[in-house]
């Protein structure tokens, strides 16, 4: 069964079998403001956990999106380049930035579930 995971850097991850669909959380979207640009990763790129693999840019700032796991970028959401509003959609509904084939499923254990992420957000303000 698919589930949502989160990082302390506000990436949101939808786990679909051995693939992680990575996007950004609502908190991150609010902090960034309206996006003006998304730089997508190259297909086939090998990433390690914590590597920057995409950049989201708003009128306020540009922020890196980090890979939550080791793996290979298998798909990038080209639709997002033309429609930045997609980022606000649920991950499985078009809000993902890239899909990463997970090479070490054990790393998923380091990610937060929704309840843990909500608690984490409370510590930030």
């Amino acid at each position, binding site marked *: 069964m698919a589930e949502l995971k989160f990082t302390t850097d506000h990436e949101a991850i939808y786990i679909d079998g051995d693939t992680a669909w990575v996007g950004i959380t609502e908190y991150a979207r609010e902090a960034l403001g*309206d996006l*003006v640009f998304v730089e997508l990763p190259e297909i086939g790129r090998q990433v390690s956990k914590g590597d920057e693999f995409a950049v989201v840019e708003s*009128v306020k*700032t540009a922020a890196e999106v980090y890979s939550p796991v080791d793996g290979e970028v298998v798909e990038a959401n080209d639709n997002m380049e033309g429609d930045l509003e997609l980022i606000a959609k649920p991950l499985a509904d078009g809000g993902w930035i890239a899909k990463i084939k997970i090479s070490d499923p054990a790393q998923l254990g380091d990610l937060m579930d929704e309840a843990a992420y909500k608690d984490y957000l409370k510590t930030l303000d």
Partner: protein
Amino acid sequence: MNNIPQMSSRTPQAEGSHANKGDSSHALGMTANDDNHALHYEENLLWEKERCDHPGVDLPAPAGMPLRTGQQAREDIGLPQVSEPQALRHFVRMSTWNYSIDHGFFPLGSCTMKHNPRLNEKLARLPGFAHLHPLQPESTTQGALALMYELQNWLAELTNLPGVCLSPAAGAHGELAGMMTIARAHEQKGQGAKRKIVLTPDSAHGTNPATATTCGFEVRNIPTKDTGMLTVEAFKEALYKTDPKGADIAGMMVTNPNTCGLFEKDIAVIADLLHEVGGYFYMDGANFNALVGKIRPGDFGVDVMHINLHKTFSTPHGGGGPGSGPICCTEELARYMPVPTVIKAPHLNPLPQGRGDSESVSSSAPSPHRGEGRGGGASYYYKLETNEDRPETCGRLKGFHGQFGMHVRALAYMLSHGADGLKQVSEDAVLNANYILRSLENDYHAPFAHQGPCMHEALLTDKRQKEQGVQTLDIAKALIEKGFHPMTVYFPLVVPGTMLIEPTETESKDSLDRFITAMKDIAGEAASRADAEEHFHAFPLSTPRRRLDEVKAARQPVLRWK
């Protein structure tokens, strides 16, 4: 100036943006055709002038005379043909749209927009300085070189870092010079390949990680979010993260006081830990105005830093001239820094009657007649060093002497203040920032105010106003409506909705009070109006252009004028 989001930056105008429909110039019944209203101008492009095909007088060449240089090659390249007064007025009218420190209060945080004393300008315009040519023989430029030498000495004294290179043309250029110096030092010691990590706090100016990356280093962030400051624990964790001995660390880049306006109180301990593992400490000197004359970065472990003459030492940020970002470094690193610096060289042909005293060319009373080969008894002369003088240098970054006009202005500023005056500069800058912080801490969220005094800039956020739908950007636009240039907004990134206010020492209490009153009024309106969100979204109302749709402008920029 670093890559800080600024209100002063021009956003390309989005075509058909709804914000432009309320354009106040149209509301005033003006057309966009060379019209004006109450001395409030609309200005067309030169191409759009009604009569842009009327060149000045251009007589045909007299019969039988050879064509003058260039005439044969001349062809129409589509430039607008306007008369001299038309062209002059076009540019002068547009120049009046600029806002500058000469117009009013300019509290842009991290930018040190202080008054530029006119004495500096007067001295920079002295013909002996202004009319020099960079290729003149050094024997004829001894005075100018002596001035640069004197400036190097002042900067060395103020930082306690003896190696000074004046040539970098701006702060970020100085950063590049400094980090290239560090890279060169590791390379010369055979450590270049393994020392690849540069540590920066997450509150750093964006240019810091950019510079490190440009120099081939890998950037590692040190988190600071709780207190806005570096802690020894967080630093150690980053230092030993991939090597327990820190042998992969090239150095760190830290701004002190940092971008939250706070003095890094553990900086000396952190510098010692860094030095223990063989790393170098680069300090971003953007905020040196809070320290100058009070403490010397060399005393808290800095190995190399840049200084923005256009911030701390009052040379213009623009309009009147370029920036200038000299670097200062330790004796150890001095051999690696870029060339050239000005050095005193032994005289090639000392005259027998010379006193043989190295001080016989006095830097305070230089005379070109006592220079190279001119006699008068000097045993030294000033020269720009070359790669032969310093073979281990990382190279040359800038043509000729750097921004010499800025060197004149900066030294004029230092000499007119003196050592005691410079000390008062930083004291007053810090006092002014604290006056603003304490005056506004009950109106705005001030996340670090409880920790004690700030340095030369005060950090506020929109946390309270956001509850009414009024955000930092709206507050900035409301300030424009009230006649003030906004502060730096949304920087540093470690605090959401930041407003970074740097008043500098050159503002009077009266001027600070007017700004504080405007800020209090804005906070009051945000708190008391039921329609605060809508009300604030309309600002500014009285500017030639109303609020632009920044998102649309960035997503669909219109980059052609037609």
